[in-house]
């Protein structure tokens, strides 16, 4: 059962054009909240609005931009509970089941990750969010039902069984910073203007 049996996601990072880099630097803190945000971008990128719209569509099609959207603060919307559910499932079934679990409406992230025996035997991670502990516990049970056939019954060296599932709830945010494209090869003033209106 080697973890190398999984094919890592094929999506290879393609090099960004300098225009795309500038686009990211200008908007990674957010878009200005104005009627014509793409005009704002066109002025700063020195291209036409049509070109901005085409570039935006193209970056979306290539997966560089997932979507242009609002990111809610979970807690302000009452989603106080999240659980990182973790599962020890058969490698041969992992891709198939991962697809199924990833499509559940209450799962926000779903990944296969390597085990590290004996201290960590879980290979499937699915993050669930809810407004109560009861709600996320119920989500966990739904996932467990779907995985019941493929959970591994693994023995430790001392013959004690490993648990084959768990849910880790977060009790404190210790640090949270956004991921950033570093501002290299681009004039330093490019990012500065977006900050104020963007509340980041």
């Amino acid at each position, binding site marked *: 059962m080697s973890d190398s049996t999984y094919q890592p996601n094929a999506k290879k990072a393609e090099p960004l054009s300098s225009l795309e880099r500038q686009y990211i630097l200008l908007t990674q803190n957010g878009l200005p909240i104005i009627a014509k945000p793409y005009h704002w971008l066109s002025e700063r990128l020195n291209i036409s609005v049509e070109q901005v719209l085409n570039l935006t569509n193209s970056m979306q099609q290539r997966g560089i931009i997932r979507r*242009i*959207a609002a*990111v809610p603060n979970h807690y302000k919307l009452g989603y106080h509970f999240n659980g990182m559910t973790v599962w020890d499932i058969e490698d041969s079934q992992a891709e198939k089941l991962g697809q199924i679990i990833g499509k559940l409406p209450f799962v926000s992230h779903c990944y296969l990750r*390597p085990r590290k025996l004996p201290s960590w035997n879980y290979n499937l991670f699915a993050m669930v969010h809810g407004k109560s502990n009861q709600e996320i516990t119920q989500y966990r049970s739904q996932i467990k039902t779907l995985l019941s056939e493929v959970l591994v019954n693994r023995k430790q060296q001392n013959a004690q069984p490993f648990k084959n599932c768990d849910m880790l709830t977060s009790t404190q945010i210790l640090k949270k910073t956004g991921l950033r494209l570093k501002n290299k090869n681009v004039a330093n003033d490019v990012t500065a203007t977006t900050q104020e209106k*963007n509340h980041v």
Partner: protein
Amino acid sequence: MTSMQSQSAIALDDIDKKIINVLQRGLPVCVQPFAEIAQQLAISEQEILNRLDNLLDNKVLSRFGPMFDAACFGGAFTLAALQVAEENFEEITKIVNDFEQIAHNYKRDHQYNMWFVIATESQQEIAQVIAKIEQATGLEVLNAPKLKEFYVGLYLPA
């Protein structure tokens, strides 16, 4: 450090909720995108802009704009964890958070009680950061990079 309980839910009216839900799905790519959404919701473009501004000011929304696939930034990422004794927790938190490559760090209720994302420019740098954390904390890092991603997205109906 933010306690999970410190941010309480805010009273939102139906229009706020609709705006949050529509804009979580995505902004159209066109000259006046908010006008299109305004039409859908039967309110004015200016009202959307005002409310969106307020939702960001009140931190109901943490961000509005393009969501980039972090992979396109060309860097490397991993999820890592530590088993930290409760009495050392604060000290270890400081050591780990002081690495600028640590993007997120959460305390979780498990033997592995500290979970953090390491974001670096290169795969090599991931290994270096892990080695430095192990050296500075005297603890063994669980390194759990993603092997396969099934879904990344989050839709929280308001």
